[in-house]
């Protein structure tokens, strides 16, 4: 990784994510435990970030919520990119009816409001596993990237090296795999991080409105929702809110760094080719 920003961002992200797993070993309270001797206690003592109305430890719950949100992002972001890469490259490379049908589907998902879709599907998914949520998230954020990949694939299809490969007798799928996708790789890697950030936000928003993670499990979204019922106790909503903002910023920071490192138009790349 040649970009300093990407390196810093990725390191912070990994460390924080690891910490959400290690934290229960260190912290005094479990996220699901209720301390019946301490309701709505402000930060301090053995409850580092205070407690909720029902005596739950805010710190432990925030860590659990962050872990949930990041897991969704880390799985659904790349998954969305994979869907986008497959759909976009097939549509762009083959053109014709393949293109039309795939793009109809893509545009349909783009114009149907994602939120409404999930809200409708939510009862069916209720009680469904965490993986279902990941799949739904991924299914909601891949479309724009797919269109970008499609236009790149269309352009790559006419490039002499792709024609040379076709002429050699390679099959279309191996041309896509060996020539088209590698040449869209920088976009895809950047996109994976950006989708990750949007998935984290989307998941929180859905959970906030009660469509995402279901109780008793928590995510940053449900914590913010529960914490903001009354604004009198800032330690209830500030930690999860700040963690959410921080997580999205770090992921975006990493994405920016990756773009600088991989995008041929960015400054570093210009320096290298210019020399």
């Amino acid at each position, binding site marked *: 990784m040649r970009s300093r920003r990407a390196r810093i961002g990725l390191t912070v992200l990994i460390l924080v994510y690891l910490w959400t797993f290690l934290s229960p070993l260190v912290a005094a309270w479990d996220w699901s435990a209720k301390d019946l001797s301490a309701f709505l206690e402000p930060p301090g003592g053995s409850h580092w970030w205070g407690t909720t109305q029902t005596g739950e430890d805010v710190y432990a719950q925030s860590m659990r919520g962050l872990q949930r949100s990041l897991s969704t992002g880390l799985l659904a972001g790349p998954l969305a990119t994979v869907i986008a890469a497959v759909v976009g490259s097939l549509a762009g490379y083959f053109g014709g009816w393949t293109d039309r049908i795939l793009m109809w589907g893509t545009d349909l998902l783009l114009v149907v409001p994602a939120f409404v879709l999930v809200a409708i599907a939510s009862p069916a998914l209720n009680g469904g596993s965490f993986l279902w949520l990941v799949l739904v998230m991924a299914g909601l954020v891949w479309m724009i990237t797919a269109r970008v990949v499609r236009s790149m694939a269309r352009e790559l299809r006419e*490039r*002499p*090296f*792709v*024609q*040379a*490969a076709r*002429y*050699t*007798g*390679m099959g279309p799928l191996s041309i896509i795999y*060996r*020539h088209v996708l*590698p*040449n869209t*790789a920088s976009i895809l890697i950047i996109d994976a991080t950006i989708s990750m950030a949007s998935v984290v936000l989307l998941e929180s928003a859905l959970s906030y409105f009660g469509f995402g993670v279901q109780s008793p499990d928590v995510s940053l979204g449900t914590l913010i929702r529960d914490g903001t019922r009354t604004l009198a106790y800032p330690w209830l909503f500030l930690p999860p809110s700040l963690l959410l903002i921080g997580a999205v910023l770090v992921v975006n920071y990493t994405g920016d760094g990756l773009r600088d490192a991989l995008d041929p138009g960015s400054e570093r790349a210009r320096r290298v*080719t210019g020399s």
Partner: protein
Amino acid sequence: MTNLVEIEDLKVHFPIRRGLFVDRVVGHVYAVDGVDLSIRRGETYGLVGESGCGKSTLGRGLLRLTEPTGGRMVFDGTDLATLKGEDLRRMRRRMQMVFQDPLSSLDPRQSVESILVEGIRVHGLDKGVDLGKTLRDLLTSVGLPHGSLRKYPHEFSGGQRQRIGIARALAVRPDLIVADEPVSALDVSVQAQVINLLEDLQGEFGLTYLVIAHDLAVVRHIADRVGVMYLGGIVEEAPAHELYTDPLHPYTRALLSAVPVPDPVVEDRRERILLTGDLPSPAAPPAGCRFHTRCPWKQATRCDTERPRLRAVESGHKVACHYAEQIRSGELRPHSVEPELVPELVLDP
């Protein structure tokens, strides 16, 4: 010597489509329109002509990179037009292409090794051979260091990239190589090296070349026989030295008279034929002889009504001109030509 390639009446027409809601074909671009051509085994056939005359389309049509509209193409006894799927793929191993722009024809994300291995794998030539040795031999043949295998195209100079492109074509042990402007993207100093390399490889591997170029000097150096194309058809074909010393077709004469002579005395005195007018649109080629709108030898009869066929004037020297003999003997003199306005193509009925 037998013919490796025989092309009869090859036509490649591109439809011009119009229409907002419905695709309508409103005309055709006659990029290649009735070309007869044969290439002997082991020779180098040079194809020259100005941009847009259809020479690249002819090469691509022969390889079926662009599907021909009509005509017959026979490669080593097999009719190419009838081949499909696997048979076509196998045949394509024997006919390789070297592209004009060496950078864009190499995948920037692929190392030289995987560029070369790709074709070998696809055609199953890697079975039972020492792949490493094959690759090293290939690199030696095209004059690249063995260390190149792990490098990427952007790490090479233009000439070296073209060598990689040539090595890629050679990797599958072809019989025919179609080189479309193989050196026009290179510096003049490097052009000669690449041309010499192509000649060396021809001897080493017994290759047959179809070299497409607009540079008369390049073709003169490398080709055994030369065909001159104008607006989708071959107007003259002759052994290279004969074409340059004794051009018969008016277009060839004009083309050659535009090449400067490196002798100031001769350069001052020699007669130059300046063509007037523009190249007619290949979507609406002139009736009769395609060249009659610009020909300084144009006659009142036949030229604008009857399309001349390519006919042998001497053995091996063919020309598509009704009056080639009279022009050669000096019986007909060139006259000035009023530049004819190229008619705007009217596509809507």
